[in-house]
């Protein structure tokens, strides 16, 4: 017996001798292998789940990566603020709401995805969410959820089911029952946009690769916008309107609250079987029905740039990719009812049947994906509701929109210098009439560009102040496009006095 034991033990010893180098070589096969101490910020409810998921990653990943992670509860709403206070003190991996995306990119708080990872993420996730994580052409963050939209919760004991499609009937029901209609119109632009989307208005922003805002296409101040504020005024004028989106209003005399999936459990706690969930209602102006729209947003996960430590950075990207993969998104849906951004997960029957997400899906046909939005917009648009409430006639409503428009216009107001600057624009150097190449004044009236690589047959013009008000072509002001005769590197020379454009070989 002793002999057998001794043999077994020595056999075990030999085996470990063999096994240890083998294991080491397996780890060494990945350049990322190693232990890393990291900090992770997720919403309070997701802390335990995220700890488990990181543990799963440690046990299953093929790269030999092991993370010693500290997971802290920092809500998606505040993480960006904290990140921007001091990026160095921020978490290595953090979750945030998409409206924070642009300023995080501008501040350099997000490390962009590698080409392969980006391809995989783009293929697997909802295009709207991918757009929300993209600035210019670069993907900066990983999609976690696609459920940041709002819809309507109502108390079935107060609101008859047949009334839920009409705003006017809902207001009447609330006033009759002396209950509140909670719609956060007066303090949140996110909810105000609902009315404008209903009538087909839009507010779309364009950003470049660095997260800077270039321009906006905004039609809130239009005849459609006027219809929208007329509808909005119906609700604002009701004495039972309450500007709030907190589920707890149901405990304090509300019959309707417009809020999102995150309130689902809270509403259920309070209303129990009386909870009704559906899409937003329609309102009527001049005999025409308009269905209220909404924003459709998401939560994203970002990797903090790690400076010199590119290995740790790459390892963090692997973890982020895992945590936002189909499996982890499904786990989050099962444990927390967070609506997945992953296309496969979205299609799964469990997700399709979840009542909160079903209402969101119902509302989604009227919703707009929340792209990149300038941080100031939230404050500019927020005051519309107050102006509308104060207005007494149509002129007052129009004034509210004018006020909004003027503030928007001042956002992109250029300096004198920018207005006077000349630039070359055209289908040149890989651009397509969308980029102004700056010119400098070398002597009074003579402007020169930087050396540009031009191909024969390409066309361009010279314009002032990045607008077409003042522009020159081959035959003077407002002339035809200049056509490049031969391929080469040229400096574009513009003589303002003569109105001529010539190419000088550089």
């Amino acid at each position: 017996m002793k002999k057998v034991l001794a043999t077994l033990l020595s056999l075990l010893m030999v085996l470990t001798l063999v096994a240890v180098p083998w294991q080491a070589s397996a780890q060494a096969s990945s350049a990322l292998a190693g232990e890393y101490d990291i900090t992770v910020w997720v919403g309070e409810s997701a802390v335990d789940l995220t700890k488990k998921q990181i543990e799963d990653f440690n046990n299953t990943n093929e790269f030999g990566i092991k993370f010693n992670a500290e997971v802290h509860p920092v809500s998606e709403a505040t993480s960006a603020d904290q990140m921007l206070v001091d990026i160095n003190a921020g978490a290595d991996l953090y979750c945030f709401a998409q409206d924070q995306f642009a300023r995080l990119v501008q501040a350099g708080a997000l490390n962009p995805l590698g080409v392969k990872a980006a391809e995989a993420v783009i293929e697997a996730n909802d295009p709207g969410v991918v757009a929300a994580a993209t600035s210019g052409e670069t993907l900066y963050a990983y999609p976690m959820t696609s459920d940041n939209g709002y819809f309507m919760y109502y108390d079935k004991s107060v609101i008859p089911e047949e009334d839920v499609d009409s705003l006017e009937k809902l207001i009447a029901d609330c006033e009759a029952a002396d209950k509140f209609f909670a719609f956060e119109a007066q303090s949140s632009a996110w909810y105000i946009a609902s009315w404008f989307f209903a009538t087909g208005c839009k507010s779309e922003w364009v950003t470049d690769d660095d997260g800077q805002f270039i321009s906006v296409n905004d039609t809130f101040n239009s005849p459609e916008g006027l219809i929208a504020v007329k509808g909005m005024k119906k609700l604002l004028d009701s004495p039972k309107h309450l500007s709030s989106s907190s589920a707890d209003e149901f405990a304090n005399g509300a019959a309707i609250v417009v809020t999102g999936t995150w309130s689902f459990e809270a509403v259920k706690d309070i209303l129990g079987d009386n909870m009704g969930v559906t899409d937003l209602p329609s309102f009527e102006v001049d005999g025409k029905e308009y269905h209220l729209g909404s924003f459709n947003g998401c939560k994203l996960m970002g990797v903090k740039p790690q400076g010199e430590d590119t290995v740790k950075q790459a390892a963090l990207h692997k973890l982020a990719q895992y945590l936002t993969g189909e499996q982890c998104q499904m786990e989050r849906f099962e444990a927390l009812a967070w609506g997945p951004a992953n296309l496969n997960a979205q299609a799964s029957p469990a997700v399709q049947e979840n009542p909160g997400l079903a209402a969101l899906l119902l509302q989604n046909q009227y919703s707009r994906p929340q792209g990149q939005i300038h941080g100031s917009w939230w404050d500019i648009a927020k005051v519309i509701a107050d102006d509308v409430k104060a207005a007494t006639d149509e002129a007052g409503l129009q004034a509210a929109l004018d006020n909004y428009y003027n503030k928007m216009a001042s956002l992109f107001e250029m300096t004198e210098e920018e207005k006077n600057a000349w630039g070359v624009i055209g289908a040149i150097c890989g651009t397509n009439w969308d980029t102004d190449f700056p010119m400098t004044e070398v002597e009074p009236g003579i402007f020169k560009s930087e050396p540009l690589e031009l191909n024969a047959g390409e066309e361009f013009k010279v314009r002032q102040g990045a607008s077409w008000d003042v522009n020159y072509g081959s035959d003077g002001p407002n002339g035809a496009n200049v056509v490049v005769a031969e391929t080469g590197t040229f400096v574009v020379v513009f003589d303002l006095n003569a109105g001529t454009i010539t190419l000088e070989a550089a």
Partner: protein
Amino acid sequence: MNTNNTAAIEKQKRGLGLKASARISNTIIYIILVIMSIIWLIPFVCIVLQSFRCESTWIESYVIPQKWGFDNYKALWNSDFPRWYLNTFIIALVVSAVQTIIVLCMSYTLSRFRFKMRKGLMQFMLILGMFPGMLAMIILYRVLDDLHLTGQYGNAVPGLILVYVASSGMGYYVSKGFFDTIPKSLDEAARVDGANRAQVLNKIILPLAKPIVIYTVLTAFMGPWGDFVFARYVSQMYPQAMNVAVGLQSWLATTTMVHDNYTLFCAGGVVVAIPVAILFMCLQRYYVEGVTGGAVKG
């Protein structure tokens, strides 16, 4: 008896007696005071009542719980709260001890010694004190972070102690005013008897200045106990680095969290208020003497 007097007596007879009119005015004053104290107390009573509510965790439209219990306090014990409480307690205790010593030494020096630039120093500190502390926040944060005295290095507590204590020398006004009222001849008598300066301070001045010492301890304790803004930055959102104010606020960051944590938050608020309330109840008498004593006579 002249006619004027008779008229006055007549008038008094027709109207109310002195006692009666005093009683009426007292009653009115008391009613007003009672109403005012009710208004002031309502929020506290609400918080205490909500902290015992067990049937729900969110904001309700009623105040008196339907189901009473200690659930929230139990949950409090199992959360990060004890850690925050300990952090705050350590900070407040150390700060109140060190700050009291510094302030008393400072006031004694400025009250009793005559040296070059004494006036200049006092004026300089007066001007410095006029700048809002918030102005220094960013640079202080950077310095603390570079010294590794912030949440990410696990040193938020010493960092905060350093910040609170560092500026304490400037809060000498009230106690210096009080020291000025203690006759110098006492010092001189003690000096003649062979006491040195430290003995004068410890044996003569401090026993006489008990109210102001207690006032200094109290204010030094209260500052860090309720501090939020700076503590939040230094914590860098690391739960183990937070103080109670920052920690409790982090429970209410979103409406969903309010729904889940509101009664817990109330229980936390009650626990936070306990030591301060006890301190004030015990030391209230001295506190009033300290505040008014220094200010009026100084």
